[in-house]
């Protein structure tokens, strides 16, 4: 187990678990909730097949620590710099070529929801609550959440949350498509691990990477580029499989 600040990381059976802290609220003292180089180092383990992000204790994360944020905001330049660094961390998490699952229980507000939105699959407990309360403090979600939320739910649902600052529960989150599945609280963590194991246990890392990269290309590339890249990746895998089969026969 590795720890930096309030965040811990551990790889068990090829699944990395990123735990947000400190409990109870797992407040984020800084948009850079984990140093970029640390996250890159942790997630570059070649044996890694999937990641689960969750909060220590009863909550996912209540978001930014407003006191720290207010102090930081005294300098506009410094704020912009930290926010941009924070965005890079979420972009890194989002672009990883392995499935990243958020297991969300309790509150998932502001910066916490930003982190959850950078994950590809969101599971939550029955007691989960979601909100972008930024508007109540006369700011807006600053780590790409306005963009990611609109890509995840309908524009109407996104606006209601961002502009209204409304809190929604697990059921409503499932209905609008913000989460993909709900579990009883006590089963959430094991359900997340089980899902990741089911998807990755018998898969070679290069197969997982190819699928996840192809998926990412569908939103970052034109159809023509994505098509060429997909064929390239397919041919590489097929060549390797073809060689494996002929070596098995000989």
């Amino acid at each position: 187990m590795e720890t930096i600040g309030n965040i811990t990381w551990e790889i068990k059976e090829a699944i990395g678990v990123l735990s947000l802290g400190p409990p109870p609220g797992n407040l984020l003292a800084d948009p850079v909730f984990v140093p970029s180089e640390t996250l890159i180092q942790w997630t570059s383990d070649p044996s890694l097949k999937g990641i689960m992000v969750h909060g220590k204790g009863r909550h996912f994360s209540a978001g930014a620590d407003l006191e720290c944020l207010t102090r930081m905001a005294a300098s506009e330049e410094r704020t912009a710099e930290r926010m941009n660094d924070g965005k890079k961390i979420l972009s890194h998490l989002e672009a990883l070529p392995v499935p990243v699952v958020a297991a969300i229980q309790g509150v998932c507000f502001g910066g916490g929801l930003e982190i959850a939105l950078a994950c590809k699959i969101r599971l939550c407990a029955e007691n989960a609550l979601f909100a972008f309360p930024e508007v109540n403090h006369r700011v807006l979600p600053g780590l790409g959440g306005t963009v990611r939320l609109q890509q995840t739910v309908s524009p109407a649902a996104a606006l209601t949350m961002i502009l209204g600052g409304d809190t929604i529960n697990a059921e409503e989150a499932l209905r609008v498509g913000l989460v993909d599945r709900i579990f009883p609280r006590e089963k959430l963590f094991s359900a997340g691990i089980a899902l990741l194991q089911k998807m990755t246990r018998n898969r070679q890392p290069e197969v997982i990477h190819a699928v996840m990269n192809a998926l990412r290309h569908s939103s970052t590339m034109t159809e023509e580029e994505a098509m060429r890249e997909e064929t390239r990746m397919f041919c590489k895998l097929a060549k390797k499989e073809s060689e494996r089969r002929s070596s098995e026969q000989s």
Partner: protein
Amino acid sequence: MNQEASLTGLSSIRWSATNHIGELILNRPPSNEMNAVFFEELDRLLPYATTRKDLLGIIVSGAGRHFSSGMALDELLKNITVSEISDHPGDKKDHVLLQNYRSFLRLKATPIPVVAAIRGVCLGSAFELALLCHFRICTPEAVFGLPETTFNLMPGLGGIRRMSELAGKAHAIELILHGNTFSAEEALAMNLVDAIVPKNELHETAASFIRKISENYRKEKRPLYLTRYLRHHGTAEDTTL
């Protein structure tokens, strides 16, 4: 290419046009496996079939009990080459798999509705083909899946992109990495098929659906339909009917 040249000697595909509806039938029963011959014939047929001015729509289906079990894997693996694929279309002759992919996209860019009518198994590349049709109608017993990763491969004909557009990223990742099959009901719930109908109504439902859409065209709803269609399916190569 003229009609005769396009249609001469088709064996893996059956093509016909009746009452202004084109019928493209995958024709290697029982499993309608998609081999190199199939893709070669598809490549030959589609430029002709998708630009005919007298058709209201096209129904894609499988001969016999199944839609198709997908790509002929052994043949594919035996012949695979990793020749360099250039970044610029038209630089040199496309890799054969890229040509197959282009055929599927041509179906998607067809300016008349293309409906997949699915019975039995619809797996791998065959499901990718169905996903690139504009609509999917299936029977209650239909079985779907992208099992490529269970053979250490990946879906390579646009299925990853289409599945995540239709069912969302989470479902796409889970179904593709796990590689499991799923039922018609599950496919409907995930937006991967548009309707489930009894076996004996499958074909007529697809045909009447196409006629209904073309009726809307004639009632001058065509601009709306085309706008919606182009937004969802990219730019059609030929939008002047």
